[in-house]
């Protein structure tokens, strides 16, 4: 790689011989920037495609008048509804998994019972299992109960990964709160859950927010479950993109605009919770 080569070149001769040359100081930074530009090029190409007028989609070069025409066309189509479904499903699933998962994570952190490790292993297995293993039984069950192609059915299957994430992540946040604080609250007459609500939970608020964001993003990004468990009514935005690709001719600017809309909230949010991203992705496998 030229990046490495740049690092080994001798410093430029300069008027202050003691100081290392520009390349020595900034070679690594320059290499990183060049590499970044190359790697993000495909991503940026999609974004600029979304801003093109429809008739300029196939022209090479970057000389075009940017327009939001594609986004407007998208909004008049069925996409707004799919976007709404995505929002609704992700929010519902995040709220439900926090509601059920947070108290469980707290109990698992503070209550040292013997089967604790089995529960942890169970959660790890849930994280690792291939989605198709969940999809076939869920498909059959939802078909049987008439919940196929509904927001509720999708919300339920999103719990399979979100609940595991909440329980796993929140445990590490709760463990960081000193138990002495809760014991002090107990002394003052709080019950366990009152102490949890008034003392522990406020202290873990940043962790809670990050966990919620991760849950939201994972539900938002899901494609496989939504593809199989929805048809027309509960279609989410990622599935709508694929429908565009397959049925709507090749309206590239519109498709690129849809992709841009789906990705914007995710990119913004994840860069915010970057610190916890790896923990979310490796939930269960790495000791916190």
């Amino acid at each position, binding site marked *: *790689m030229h990046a490495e080569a740049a690092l080994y070149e001798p410093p430029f001769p300069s008027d202050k011989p003691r100081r290392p040359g520009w390349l020595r100081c900034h070679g*690594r930074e320059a*290499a*990183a920037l060049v590499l970044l530009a190359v790697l*993000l090029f495909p*991503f940026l190409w*999609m974004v600029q495609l979304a801003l093109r007028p429809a008739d300029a989609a*196939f022209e*090479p070069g970057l000389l075009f008048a940017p327009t939001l025409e594609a986004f407007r066309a998208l909004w008049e189509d069925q996409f707004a509804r799919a976007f709404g479904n995505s929002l609704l499903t992700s929010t519902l699933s995040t709220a439900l998994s926090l509601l*059920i998962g947070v*108290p*469980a994570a707290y*109990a698992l952190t503070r*209550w040292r019972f013997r089967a604790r490790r089995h*529960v942890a292993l*169970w959660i790890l*297995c*849930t994280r*690792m*299992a*291939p989605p*198709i*293993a969940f999809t*076939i*039984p*869920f*498909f*059959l*069950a939802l078909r049987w109960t008439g919940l196929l192609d509904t927001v509720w059915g999708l919300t*339920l*299957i999103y*719990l*399979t990964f979100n*609940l*595991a994430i909440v329980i796993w992540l929140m445990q590490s946040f709760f463990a960081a709160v000193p138990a002495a604080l809760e*014991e002090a609250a*107990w002394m*003052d007459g*709080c019950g*366990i859950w009152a102490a949890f609500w008034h003392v522990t939970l406020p202290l873990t608020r940043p962790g809670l927010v990050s966990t919620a964001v991760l849950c939201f993003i994972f539900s*938002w990004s899901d*494609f496989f479950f939504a593809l*199989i468990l929805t048809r027309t009514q509960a279609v989410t935005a*990622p599935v709508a*993109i*694929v429908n565009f*690709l397959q049925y709507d001719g*090749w309206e*590239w600017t519109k498709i*690129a605009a849809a992709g841009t809309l789906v*990705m914007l909230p*995710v*990119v913004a949010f994840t*860069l915010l919770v970057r610190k916890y*991203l790896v923990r979310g*992705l490796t939930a*269960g*496998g*790495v*000791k916190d």
Partner: protein
Amino acid sequence: MQMPPALAPALPAGEAGQHYYLPSRSLAPAPPAAAPGWQRQQRRAYGWGLYPALMVLALITLAPLLTLIVVSLTPLSLTDPAGTFHFRDPLGNYRQLLKDPRFLHSLWVQFQLSSVGVTLQLLMGLGIALLLHGRSPVLGAVRSLFLIPMVLPPIVVALIWKILYTPDISPLHQALEALGWPLRSLIANPDTALWAVVAADTWQWFPFTMLMVLAALQMIPDDPLEAARMDGANRWQLLRFIVFPHIRAVLLVCALFRLIDSFKAFPLLYVLTNGGPGTVTEVTNFYGFIQAFNFSFWGYGSAIALVMLAGVFALSALVSRLGREGGHDAR
């Protein structure tokens, strides 16, 4: 010490004579270690927090697993749902799997995709992590931007590469044509389709290794590096003998995680090649999807899913063990 009558039954009879600190009823319960009554109350309270989640987890994970196992023993399918729900030949699906050339081929495709993809991701992630490891505001800012491919929704990644691989619209194809090297569509060509998918997969997932390795690099103490430099070690020797032993465990964990997740690869394949041309890019997951949801052979699809599940669990057990040993380095 006389016990208040209301509290007396809460204490086991044998321990009632011992000296417990018993609060008057207007005060809070005793220190948790001292009173069994409080402990029991505590246990019950924790149970109220834990059991609903365990019940939901059982409903959404164990019940489907049982269903999957049961269904995989039957020839259940859409065409005759009632008539095919029987157990006359419980292992029929599995026997058929062993002779199904398309399934066996999908295992081979899976092996190629996973091994090459994960290796490339590790190399690229490691290289970029080494490049970005350093104290500089530019490098710090750039680090976050390198994460973008990984955090994009998978379907958007698939879309980005679909644009790149479609000759009509691709800047890549246009540039090559302008240079006089027109290129056939990579994803329509059976010889290159799988490698085109591998390239996209590598692009998507190198940040994972990069992030983990960067975290590990920050944990390396300065002293051994300083000492080695004093002794005249060159960059390669520093990397090979000081840095590498520190990040080996993390690399292994990364490899296993990515390996397990590579079995789930779906959106890229669905959008870029749809398993084709022919069955060139049809991995096991994709074949299971086709059997279960294109052909509606649910029994057979379940058998495929169970085989994958077994493989994934075997690898997870490995991750779990390694995570416990190498976890300190990974954080």
